[in-house]
């Protein structure tokens, strides 16, 4: 049975807890734990779920997450996708390039591409992981539009062909709305919307070409039992307010941002998650370094009860278990010391 969780209460509990919660966006180590490859998990919902389950069984994450696969929705629209055995899939070429091709673009249904596999993984995770919330995932509207139109081209087209990009965003948002609602039906407790490309816009453009559409999804789906977390790893500090404006109850940041500054800017009732470098720290450092870096971030953010420690993005394939262990050890040590030192002051 899926965990029926009032997510507002859950967030309030995290904020009031003396312990720092950890929600790394992390499925790839789970895939490796069950002896499978990336290609198996991104193409088969059951394998994907088993990887999520393996992480949840092994590690004290405060919520389970799914793979941040930013090709599922583009594939549904018709993009050709490159699958590697050990790599996250990627979009091979653009699908649309002007007003006419965008006008002709059909909004896919829920049976397109791998959508059903991702819904299946989410459903199985929701049904079988009962001790913590499960977050599904999808791409954000501007990043999806960028994948369909070409990431570099959309940056200028947003300015010189706003009608084309607005139409494209409307179509992307329609698909995403439908997808998130279906995801909600699977019983997951929330969704992480990954909107990295919006991070390259200035504040005005981000508001008009990303946040406005994210807000539509938030307004239509977020409620007591379903939380939206907006991830933007491209934001280097200039877009935090625009992210807040979307109304998402959780915000997730990448490693290029100053976490302390973010915590000063974001209202204390919004969960703020981030931001250890998924590649530079999780993958490339050794266990000792990870412990130090994790514990430094925890100490620096100690005063902010709405902080949740996480990776700055999906942790990639090839992260060793020793490194994941080191991350959780650091969280554990911090919580233990924090509680003991608090008790000592009484």
């Amino acid at each position, binding site marked *: 049975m899926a965990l029926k969780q009032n997510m507002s209460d859950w967030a309030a509990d995290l904020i009031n807890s003396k312990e720092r919660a950890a929600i790394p966006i992390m499925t790839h180590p789970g895939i490796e734990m069950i002896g499978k490859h990336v290609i198996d998990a991104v193409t088969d919902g059951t394998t994907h779920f088993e990887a999520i389950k393996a992480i949840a069984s092994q590690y004290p994450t405060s919520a389970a997450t799914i793979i941040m696969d930013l090709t599922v929705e583009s594939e549904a629209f018709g993009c050709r996708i490159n699958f590697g055995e050990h790599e996250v899939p990627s979009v091979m070429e653009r699908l649309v390039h002007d007003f006419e091709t965008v006008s002709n673009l059909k909004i896919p249904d829920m049976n397109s591409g791998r959508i059903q596999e991702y819904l299946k993984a989410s459903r199985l995770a929701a049904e079988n992981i009962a001790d913590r919330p499960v977050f599904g995932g999808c791409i954000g509207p501007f990043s999806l539009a960028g994948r369909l139109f070409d990431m570099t081209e959309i940056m*200028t087209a947003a300015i*010189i062909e706003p009608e084309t990009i607005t139409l494209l965003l409307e179509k992307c948002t329609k698909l995403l709305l439908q997808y998130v609602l279906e995801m909600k039906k699977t019983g997951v407790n929330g969704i992480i919307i990954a909107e990295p490309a919006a991070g390259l816009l200035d504040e005005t453009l981000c508001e008009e070409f990303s946040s406005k559409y994210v807000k539509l999804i938030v307004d239509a789906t977020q409620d007591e039992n379903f939380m939206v977390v907006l991830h933007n790893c491209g934001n280097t500090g200039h877009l935090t307010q625009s992210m807040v404006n979307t109304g998402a109850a959780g915000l997730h940041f990448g490693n290029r941002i100053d976490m302390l500054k973010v915590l000063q800017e974001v209202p204390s009732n919004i969960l703020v998650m981030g931001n250890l470098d998924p590649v*530079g720290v999780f*993958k*490339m450092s050794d266990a000792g370094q990870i412990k130090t870096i994790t514990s430094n971030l925890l100490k620096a953010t100690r005063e902010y009860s709405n902080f949740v420690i996480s990776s700055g993005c999906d942790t990639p394939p090839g992260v060793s278990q020793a490194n994941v262990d080191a991350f959780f050890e650091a969280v554990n040590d911090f919580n233990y010391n924090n509680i003991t030192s608090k008790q000592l002051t009484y």
Partner: protein
Amino acid sequence: MENILEKIAYCTEFGKINKVSPYPPDMKGQDGVDELTKLALEQGVSPNDILTKGFVLGMERVGKKFSENKVFVPQMLISAKAMTTGMAHLKPFFTSGEVKRKGKFIIGTVAGDLHDIGKNLVAMMVEGSGWEVIDLGVDVNSDKFIQNIKNSNATAVALSALLTTTMVNMEKIVKEIRGQVPEIKICVGGAPVNQEFCAKIGADHYSPDPQGLVEYLNRLVA
């Protein structure tokens, strides 16, 4: 004459591509780089002046603002687009040899890495400063770099990487390029790269943004 060159520089800086482009809003309906370049050529302005006192100057100004975080990626790209539109009118003069480019420059995102926005920006900035650019795209391995260097007789090659994992591939690529074409200048860049890493892998130049690279390249041919 100075006036039209300044106008071209201004339109490049602010990304006014052509008359029909709605951007920037306060220049709606006015000529852009496209029309002004054609006009300048008709008026007998030297293509070389159009390049250096128009495009190069405009790109320099917007590049500086970008380095100072005063404008963002879209504004930079739109300036580059305006410049490219104007540059198309100079093609015949490049071919005839009347306008000489500073040299050939090769760029690519290294093997395993698909991030190309930064690489595209760098390529456009270098083109806008008067170089002929050969863009090899993304996921480029040593062989492809080497083959293109040999075929083109380029002065410099640039490697871009956005992932800490693919940054590591740079070391191998730099070594292999050195082994085959010792005289070529190798530049590296991208968010995780720094000066220390550049020195460690034996590359010739690192800069955090395109502006620094352009200055380096220009010093090479000064």
